[in-house]
């Protein structure tokens, strides 16, 4: 970053001479170090999963949830500055509510993301605010079927079949690319999500982590966004651990052969 220290990075809403907004780039930096979040679209829904680094053994296990709901049909998870994520979700809920008040219907996923995209973008435009320090994943079902979106600090958003953000995003993406969301079932998707989070965690192996998974599916949850049931979560974790061990064994075999 050539312009660091020239002052162009100290204020939001200012371009540097080479046309960059440094505050937005710093916000993206905050995301890059956060725990990995992923989303996978499957046949009739979306699964979201997040790696929660356990920063202290005094934390209550299984609490401090990271996946939130907007309305009944949209799940959100994010990597980066967690309080900013709560802010975004709270805005999303306001959008949901005002749409419901006006039209009685549930807001469609693309429309909600568009509204939130504009909201996040506005936080890059003024020097009275700073951008959102998160990248958020949205999974939901509406009358057009399942949707998965990823929204970045700049306000840009795209739809995905599989998406990942946070520290382990690169290895997660490699795995996501191998999945076929047209044939994947809900339960398979949950297990794959667990496996990918476990894999993405390999880079920060020294740290303890928890995994949180939610889904929204026509067949499994009647179009509602919910945490996956405890027994399925357990099954998924076991599957992830087993797969991870297999891979390690394979690596060792290869090494031996050399």
């Amino acid at each position: 970053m050539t312009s660091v220290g020239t002052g162009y990075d100290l204020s939001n809403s200012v371009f540097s001479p080479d046309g960059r907004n440094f505050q937005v780039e710093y916000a993206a930096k905050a995301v890059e170090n956060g725990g990995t979040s992923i989303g996978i679209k499957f046949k009739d829904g979306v699964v979201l999963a997040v790696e929660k680094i356990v920063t202290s053994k005094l934390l209550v296990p299984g609490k401090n949830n990271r996946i939130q709901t907007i309305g009944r049909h949209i799940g959100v998870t994010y990597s980066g500055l967690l309080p900013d994520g709560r802010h975004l979700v709270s805005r999303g809920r306001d959008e949901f509510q005002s749409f419901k008040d006006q039209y009685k219907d549930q807001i469609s996923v693309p429309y909600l993301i568009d509204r939130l995209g504009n909201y996040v973008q506005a936080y890059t435009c003024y020097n009275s605010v700073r951008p959102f320090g998160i990248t958020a994943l949205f999974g939901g079902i509406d009358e057009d079927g399942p949707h998965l979106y990823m929204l970045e600090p700049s306000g840009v958003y795209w739809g995905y079949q599989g998406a990942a953000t946070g520290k382990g995003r690169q290895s997660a993406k490699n795995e996501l690319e191998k999945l076929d969301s047209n044939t994947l079932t809900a339960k398979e998707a949950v297990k794959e999500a667990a496996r990918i989070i476990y894999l993405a965690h390999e880079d920060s192996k020294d740290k303890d982590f928890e995994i949180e998974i939610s889904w929204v599916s026509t067949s499994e949850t009647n179009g509602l966004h919910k945490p996956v049931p405890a027994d399925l979560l357990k099954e998924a974790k076991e599957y992830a651990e087993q797969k991870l061990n297999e891979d390690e064994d394979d690596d060792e075999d290869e090494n031996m052969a050399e």
Partner: protein
Amino acid sequence: MDHDPFRWGRPNDQHYGQYNNAIANAAIKYKDGIVIAADNLGSYGSLARFTDVERLFPTGDNAVVGISGDISDLQYVSRLLDDLEIEHNYDSDGHQLKASHIHEYLQKVFYHRRSKMDPLWNSVIVAGLDDDKPFLKYVDLLGVTYSAPTLATGFGAYLAVPLLRKVVDKEEDVANVDEETATNAIRECMKVLYYRDARSLDKYTLVTISKTNGVKVEKNQQSKEQSWRFAKDIKGYGTQVV
């Protein structure tokens, strides 16, 4: 507000329309839960205009709200309940949205509106299971509340309650009544109400909430074994001449 002594406190057609859906919210406690029923009629004055109106709204995990009165206000209240449930789910803190909470909330809404001189023209029964104990409480357009082991709104307050009290008179009696007895009593009430109240229907929704089965909703219930022979003995009304 119309201060004409003969019209004071009555719904103004300009504001409230003629939609009225008077009666037949009848509810009873039994040892493991509650049974509540409401017919599906939406009247337009004396015209039976809609015959598929749902007036029982399951809210939270263990409660149902029965609403009678003005239908547009009913629809508004039902949306409030939906919002309440959605907002409650946002706090994923393991806390329950109980019948008592819903009732307290509605009481605040109704009392607030009556204090603005803009009441919601309804009477409401909130029924549910709170900590495995049957809960049954009333609230109306004035924000007035009361609780009893049997409750009914509108005409039901005159016709259904005496019948239900034969089954459960005092709180102590609740423990001696099983689901079948309670359900039969409610069904009997719905039939009597259909006999005697011209703004009622013999098609109704029945909701049972119990520990074992949770919230059970039975729609399109038909009052059976009706007998209208008594009608020929009724004299002195309408075109009938003695």
